[in-house]
């Protein structure tokens, strides 16, 4: 009798343990995932500007003077090209950096939520001299600022 009871208790403890274990594992798997934006494979693997635009849902982007794309005119090292984009457009929800002549045009895509200033800076690689584009989504429409950056040493495999 005692043996049966202790077995029973053990089984119950195991069951509870399992439930906690599964919950903890699921939490570990899903909790951080929720914090990340979806990685748009098609957009990042697009070979041309047009392919990247299509995957991002861009249907005709207009150049806008309300976007500032800050970068130097000449990059001595294409592996490290500092770029900054500031959008003064109302309801900016996205800022992306694209390099027209890179093997994959799309470099980085920032989601601008209500708690973020539409002002992001990073460093990108450029294989050769190319137009760099800051693509901004504001009020559901797309706008761009374009700047040609001359590269003296390429950044993709030297």
């Amino acid at each position, binding site marked *: 009798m005692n043996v049966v009871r202790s077995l029973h208790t053990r089984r119950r403890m195991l069951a509870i343990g399992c439930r906690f274990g599964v919950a903890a594992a699921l939490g570990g798997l899903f909790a*951080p995932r929720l*914090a*990340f*934006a*979806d*990685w*748009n494979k098609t957009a*990042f693997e697009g070979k041309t500007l047009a392919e990247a635009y299509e995957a991002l849902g861009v249907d005709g982007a207009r150049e806008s003077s309300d976007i500032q794309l800050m970068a130097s005119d000449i990059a001595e090292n294409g*592996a*490290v*090209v*500092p770029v*900054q984009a500031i959008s003064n457009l109302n309801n900016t929800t996205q800022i992306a950096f694209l*390099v027209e002549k*890179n*093997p*994959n045009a*799309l*470099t*980085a*895509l*920032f*989601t601008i*939520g*209500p*708690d*973020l*200033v539409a*002002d*992001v*800076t*990073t*460093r*990108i*690689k*450029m294989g050769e001299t190319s137009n760099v584009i800051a693509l901004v989504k504001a009020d559901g429409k797309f706008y761009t600022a374009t700047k040609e950056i001359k590269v003296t040493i390429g*950044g*993709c*495999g030297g």
Partner: protein
Amino acid sequence: MGNPMKIRAVSKNGITEVKVLMNHEMETGFRKDDSGNLVPAWFIREVSAKLNDKVVMQAAWGPSVSKNPYLAFKIKGGQAGDKVTVSWIDSKGDTRSDDATVT
């Protein structure tokens, strides 16, 4: 686990400016090694940042973000003593999370 990031978060006039230096190879998949073989792509794909417990920044990256990525962004709000946490996940599923106290 990835290598640690350097994070600086400074609050001024109601805006918290965050500067992050990450530690990652960011292989493009187009580079060849010394024996001429393509080095497979390996890069940070997604980045997110939290101010205390609230997600404030999300980004998706391709392999053309520079090696050892630098990132700067500005959060509306935040004050000295708040915590900024930056996390990334790379194309191999490796992740890293580091935090800094706002000054």
